[in-house]
């Protein structure tokens, strides 16, 4: 390195030893050498040494010193590539990639052929998806060191990513000729990659096929080979050969439904009979395979379906296949199949009760487990159909038959949860959990149920039975990136009004996604070095789509709605969540008895929490000690623990929300709530065009009133969310259009809005439109809530009272008849409780809960006294024993 130019031999040797120590992660030793150089007054301000010293400090966790030193070093020696490189490394370690890239570029200015810096730069460019830049850097590396196969393959991948296929293929061809590969498997991978690249480049299918056939012998990954070949043959229209390939694939794995689809296409089977015959043949050949037995159920109709389904059910109920219902659930979308399945299973039930047979014509008697699994299926069936009392009845019968089967308890937990009885659900899962304490899945389900019941602390204690010893629950879950849990925590905390905690959980999940992107670094060099290019490229593309994941969507939506609440009701920040309202006097006596038991449970909980806190303290101590002694040598910057209070007291809730809104718009454009939430944020930010864009996107998703096609203004068919958006937009426009200076925007807005149905335009009587909307669908709680929220937004002073009234003013019988979910009711309750419809007297909230209770008679989540039922083991089941009639 050129650093030696300014240092005499002795110091220069010391400097080299600094570099060596750094490479071997002996940071303290490195610092000693740096001190030796700097203590010589002649070199006290030696730039490169200062920079290196800073870098070493960085890895010892002393960030501030690090930046100070590196900047000083850089100032003293702006022409040193070492200083710039170090500055780049420092920023990279803090994930300031843009800055790091700039620093690397500067370093290369002073040492244009420095391979190490170029390599570091290329990684960051790829990480930032600067594909063009990456390709350029890789090209230079290739020209500098063409003997290294990594430089070949790196360049080829780069060319692939920017779409320069011709050059990539030419190089790949050359690459193979140069005999760079070490093993046969590597050669095989390169061949498959070349075929994939040819296909991606749009080469004629027959050429690609010819290439594959030519190299068939040398391609060792037969599965990929066959799958690829099959796909190409179908595309090429070589159906006969395609059929052969798919038959081979089915032979390898008779469970993959894609192979059957491929085979059906290749054989050009169109009629259901032909397809069923094919599956029958495959079934007789692979009698143990599930796919050729399950797939016919998708195809068959009517009586054929009945015959196949009967046999299918019978075999599996006899064998005891717990996920049977789950496997068949997709058939329920077909109303006819649903009816058939219901009649089959009810027949089975009747016959089993009367004669121990599924059907009278059966020659053998069934073991008791056949009845058991039939009851289990029946309960799930009626749960799906929303006939809750029958679902409860059947599962209770099943549990009486066999109280030790864990699946039954889990099913009952689901049913009760759907009834709106999260507490009962917890009780079932606690029992299930106790029956097999080694079952982690049941443990997790139990924790989920506790979260649904709003008991975050207890859920933590539950999962802690499986977490590592000597590690706090939260840090363990964070480390394990346990997002199903954190997402549920976020949901629960929001419902309970703990907005800070909710935000914290949301940000935890967000951090995991940042982490996933970070984790790519490990693969950029590894995959190219090992020549596993096909999965690598797929991995890069998949990483770009990661945030489509439902976990990310859920926490983003939650975070945005919380930030909106914080913006609109700043007072919420300081509101302590209310203790549950006083129970009615009649309940008090009853309550007293439970108190003792509760106190005991509470003491136990306290003890566990205490332990947890101790562990937490210890962990912090350990971490601190580790940092002090320089034991932590990780490259990743130590993340600051998220602070719920800090998140809650943000000064810029809208800006914070915008980050999530943008992610939602990019990765979840097919969800209507994305656009409805985006609208609310843009409304608060006062951005009319963005608002309209959101409304248009939401409208497109719902499918009617596209804006382009005015049609008859049938506003009753309008989505309540879009209804709200349009009214709020017109309301906003009326008050703000004058202050708008940009006339282009005005014109565009006017043009778009004029396509809306007249009642929604800015000159309309918006309050009236809002009320009319309710008159048309008065029995939907979701509509009531949307209208109520809109009323409150239209007239912030007088509105709330009127708005809240809307949530009380319904007729029980009619609302019962229309499809209202418990979620709708809970959403309404949440809006009443968090004050977004104005401050309400607590007694009104109790009143609302009472109404909901009569609407959902099996529910407990609307009980006025939240503590009710904690220890009444036998409370619910008796009343809802199996009723033989159809009650809904």
């Amino acid at each position, binding site marked *: 390195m050129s650093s030696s130019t300014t240092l005499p031999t002795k110091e220069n040797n010391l400097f080299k030893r600094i570099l060596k120590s750094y490479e071997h992660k002996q940071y303290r030793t490195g610092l000693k050498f740096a001190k030796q150089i700097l203590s010589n007054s002649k070199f006290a301000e030696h730039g490169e040494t200062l920079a290196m010293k800073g870098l070493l400090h960085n890895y010892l966790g002393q960030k501030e010193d690090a930046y100070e030193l590196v900047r000083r070093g850089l100032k003293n020696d702006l022409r040193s590539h070492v200083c710039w490189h170090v500055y780049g490394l420092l920023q990279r370690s803090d994930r300031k990639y843009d800055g790091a890239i700039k620093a690397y570029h500067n370093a290369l200015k002073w040492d244009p052929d420095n391979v190490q810096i170029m390599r570091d730069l290329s990684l960051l460019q790829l990480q930032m998806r600067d594909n063009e830049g990456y390709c350029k850097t890789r090209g230079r590396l290739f020209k500098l060191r063409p003997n290294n196969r990594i430089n070949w393959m790196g360049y080829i991948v780069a060319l692939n990513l920017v779409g320069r296929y011709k050059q990539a293929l030419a190089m790949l061809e050359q690459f193979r000729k140069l005999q760079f590969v070490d093993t046969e498997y590597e050669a095989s991978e390169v061949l498959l990659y070349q075929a994939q690249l040819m296909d991606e480049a749009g080469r004629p299918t027959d050429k690609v096929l010819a290439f594959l056939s030519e190299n068939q012998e040398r391609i060792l990954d037969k599965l990929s080979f066959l799958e690829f070949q099959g796909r190409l043959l179908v595309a090429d229209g070589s159906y006969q050969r395609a059929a052969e390939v798919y038959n081979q694939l089915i032979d390898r794995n008779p469970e993959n439904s894609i192979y059957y689809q491929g085979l059906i296409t290749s054989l050009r089977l169109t009629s259901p009979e032909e397809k069923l015959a094919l599956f029958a043949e495959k079934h007789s050949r692979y009698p143990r395979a599930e796919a050729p037995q399950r797939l016919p159920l998708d195809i068959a109709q009517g009586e054929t379906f009945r015959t196949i389904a009967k046999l299918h059910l019978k075999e599996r109920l006899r064998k005891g296949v717990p996920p049977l219902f789950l496997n068949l659930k997709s058939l329920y979308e077909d109303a006819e199949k649903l009816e058939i399945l219901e009649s089959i299973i009810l027949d089975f039930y009747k016959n089993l009760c009367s004669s*121990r047979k599924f059907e009278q014509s059966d020659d*053998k008697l*069934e*073991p008791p*487990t056949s009845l058991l699994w039939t009851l289990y299926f029946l309960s799930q069936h009626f749960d799906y159909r929303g006939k809750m009392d029958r679902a409860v009845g059947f599962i209770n019968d099943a549990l009486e038959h066999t109280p030790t089967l*864990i699946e039954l308890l889990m099913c009952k937990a689901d049913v009760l949860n759907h009834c709106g009885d999260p507490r009962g659900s917890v009780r079932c899962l606690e029992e299930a959990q106790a029956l*097999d304490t*080694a079952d982690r899945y049941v443990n997790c389900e139990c924790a989920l149920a506790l979260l649904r019941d709003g008991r975050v602390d207890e859920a933590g204690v539950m999962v802690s039975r499986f977490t590592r010893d000597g590690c706090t629950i939260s840090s363990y879950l964070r480390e394990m990136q346990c997002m199903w849990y954190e997402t549920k925590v976020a949901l629960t905390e929001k419902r309970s009004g703990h907005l800070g905690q909710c935000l914290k959980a949301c940000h935890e999940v967000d951090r995991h996604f940042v982490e996933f992107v970070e984790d790519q670094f490990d693969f950029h060099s590894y995959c190219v070095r090992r020549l596993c290019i096909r999965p690598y490229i797929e991995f890069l593309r998949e990483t770009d789509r990661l945030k489509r994941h439902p976990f990310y969507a859920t926490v983003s939506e939650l975070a945005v709605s919380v930030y909106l609440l914080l913006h609109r009701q700043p007072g919420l920040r300081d509101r302590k969540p209310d203790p549950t309202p006083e129970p009615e006097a009649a309940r008090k006596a009853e309550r007293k008895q439970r108190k003792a038991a509760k106190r005991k449970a509470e003491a136990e909980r306290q003890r566990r929490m205490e332990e947890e806190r101790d562990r937490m303290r210890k962990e912090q101590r350990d971490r601190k000690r580790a940092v002090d002694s320089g034991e932590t040598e990780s490259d990743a910057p130590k993340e600051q623990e998220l602070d719920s209070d800090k998140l809650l007291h943000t000064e810029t809730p809208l800006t914070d929300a915008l980050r999530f809104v943008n992610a939602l718009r990019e990765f979840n454009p097919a969800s209507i709530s994305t656009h409805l939430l985006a609208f609310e944020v843009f409304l608060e930010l006062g951005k009319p065009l963005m608002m309209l864009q959101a409304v248009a996107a939401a409208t497109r998703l719902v499918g009617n009133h596209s804006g382009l096609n005015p049609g008859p203004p049938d506003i009753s068919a309008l989505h309540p969310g879009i209804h709200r958006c349009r009214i709020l937009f017109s309301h906003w426009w009326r008050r703000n259009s004058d202050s708008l200076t940009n006339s282009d925007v005005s014109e565009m807005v006017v043009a778009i809005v004029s396509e809306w149905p007249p009642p929604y335009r800015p000159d309309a009587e918006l309050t009236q439109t809002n009320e009319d909307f309710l008159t048309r669908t008065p029995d939907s709680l979701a509509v009531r809530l949307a209208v109520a929220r809109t009323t409150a937004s239209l007239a912030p002073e007088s509105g709330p009272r009127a708005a809240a009234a809307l949530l009380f003013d319904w007729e029980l019988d009619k609302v019962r008849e229309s499809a209202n979910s418990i979620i709708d009711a809970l959403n309404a309750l949440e809006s009443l409780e968090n004050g977004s419809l104005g401050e309400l007297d607590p007694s009104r909230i109790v009143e609302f809960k009472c109404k909901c209770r009569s609407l959902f008679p099996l529910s407990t989540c609307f009980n006025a006294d939240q503590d009710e039922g904690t220890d009444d083991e036998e409370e619910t089941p008796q009343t809802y024993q199996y009723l033989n009639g159809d009650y809904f």
Partner: protein
Amino acid sequence: KTNPTTTSATVGRYGGRIDLGTITQHNLRQLKRLNQVIFPVAYHEKFYSDVLHFGDLAKLAYFNDIPVGAVCCRIESTGDQRRLYIMTLGCLAAYRQMGIGKVMVDHVLSICDRDSLLEAVYLHVQVSNDSAINFYKRFDFEVVDIRSNYYKRITPSDAYVLQKTIFGTPPTPLPWPQDKLSGVVENGFDHEDSHIDDSLHSDEPTKNNGQNCNDSSSTQS
């Protein structure tokens, strides 16, 4: 999943598969739940904590992989005499007449085969429990004693002591209660599985109030 440690399976009635499995701290609750449902008496916590160390003497019975029954024994030594005592043996009502009881008794007898010092297997059964009495008769158990007021909280409170002698001099058997024998045979319904209610012999009828009436340990003669 439910049953990791089974012995080789037996095919029971109607093609059901019967296995025996080890009781561990993880599935102990299954035993508790079964006993709770099957027997009219509650067992003390100590009973369950002891069971964990019994090894082969305590087993869960699985029918098609579902835990539906259990057997718990202990070895009793008085002087130079060693006997196997069946504390509980039973299965859920819905699974009776499947041959599960037989598998459990066969298991108990196989312990005796392996332990040549065991002189006899014995148990208590409520005098009214006809089906259990008939069930054990099929395994050559004999009534060797009647203990009055053996059970504290259930009526009739008297118990027969049933014993199968492996070696040595068997005690003089009392005559089998005749009326009961004929009754079941005449029944004509599934007499093969007459161990319905092979449940009521427990030597530790501790009751819900938590008092441990451990007097029965003195019942050995």
